[in-house]
């Protein structure tokens, strides 16, 4: 029964495939990615199918998402960046749905694998490099020199800027991976406590009697509050919690599991948002190396 809290992160190979020593087996993560791809595609196709002037529920969600992604791009890259809308939108939707679907018990969180997030990060950073050199040629190396640096500072500033550039893909990858892994580990530990936490030993009839007492207390709450006012309410709550703890102490980790799960949905959204924003910022830096992202304020 006792499971390691890291158990949810293990990959189980369903169909082992080996190509020249390279392990390309179909495992949980691969299947989950397929599910996400199919789901996102279906959602957006169905939502875009109707194109009504007064949007239905699905169209409303899709329009909200598109508007949201458009807002990110305009905030960080300006009108120029709308060329990248398909890429950015796909990235955001894929990461967001991977994060959120992974919260459903029994599924797998693809973004809790460093290799997945690193692949995204390296792709995004590589794209920004290719784009920068394509648009600006060798002048793109000027991003290593912050504007206004005196010449004698260059031997110090260029290595610092080089490291800070190289840190970009790593911070992208590690942030997403660490947030997802940490959140799911906490959830797994809490949920493990719901199953394994030792109950206060009581014979079954006593437990049942206490439960009836709790129900009676709760159903008489109006009368108690009318009789004793605010203190009656406080006493009722404390007594109710104490009774619940004696009867079934596991309600504490259970409530925490639910609360943290809600919080994790927020984190899932937040991390997808941050990843997309930074993608835009890096691509924007490639388009205008010392451009609006640092000096002119964004719109």
């Amino acid at each position, binding site marked *: 029964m006792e499971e390691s809290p890291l158990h949810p992160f293990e990959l189980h190979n369903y169909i082992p495939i080996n190509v020249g020593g390279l392990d390309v087996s179909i495992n949980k993560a691969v299947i989950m990615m397929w599910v996400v791809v199919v789901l996102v595609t279906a959602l957006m196709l169905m939502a875009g199918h109707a194109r009504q002037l007064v949007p239905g529920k699905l169209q409303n969600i899709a329009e909200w998402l598109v508007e949201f992604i458009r807002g990110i791009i305009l905030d960080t890259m300006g009108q120029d960046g709308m060329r990248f809308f398909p890429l950015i939108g796909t990235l955001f939707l894929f990461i967001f749905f991977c994060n959120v679907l992974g919260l459903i018990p029994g599924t797998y969180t693809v973004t809790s694998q460093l290799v997945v997030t690193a692949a995204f990060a390296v792709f995004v950073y590589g794209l920004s490099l290719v784009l920068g050199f394509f648009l600006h040629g060798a002048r793109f190396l000027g991003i290593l020199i912050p504007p206004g640096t005196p010449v004698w500072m260059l031997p110090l500033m260029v290595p610092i800027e080089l490291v*800070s550039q190289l840190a970009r893909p*790593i911070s992208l990858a590690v942030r997403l991976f660490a947030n997802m892994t940490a959140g799911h580990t906490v959830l797994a530990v809490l949920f493990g406590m719901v199953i394994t936490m030792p109950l206060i030993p009581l014979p079954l009839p006593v437990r049942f009697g206490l439960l009836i007492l709790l129900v009676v207390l709760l159903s008489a709450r109006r009368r108690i509050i009318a009789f004793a006012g605010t203190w009656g309410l406080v006493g009722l709550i404390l007594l109710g919690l104490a009774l619940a703890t004696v009867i079934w102490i596991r309600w504490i980790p259970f409530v925490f599991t639910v609360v943290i799960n809600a919080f994790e949905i927020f984190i899932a959204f937040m991390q997808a948002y941050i990843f997309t924003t*930074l993608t835009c910022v890096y691509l924007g830096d490639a388009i205008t190396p010392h451009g609006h992202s640092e000096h002119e304020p964004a719109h």
Partner: protein
Amino acid sequence: MPPSQDPFYAGLGQAVRIGTELLAALIVGGGLGWIVDTYLLNSTPWSLVVGLSLGGAAGVRNAYRAAQRWQDSSGNSGTQG
């Protein structure tokens, strides 16, 4: 209003970013130093030390840049304060 224009979400996004920014630069700086030490110059531990300092500086610079960008955009849209 889409949340990307909501100062609360934008601010929170920036705030969460900065911690990892520091860490990632340290990892890169230290890693580069270590590689130079072990495989190129055999100069343990000096380039690791130099790399870590460069990484720390780069991390602070990245964090500073992120904060500056945030200040710029929030000052412009008039949501400051």
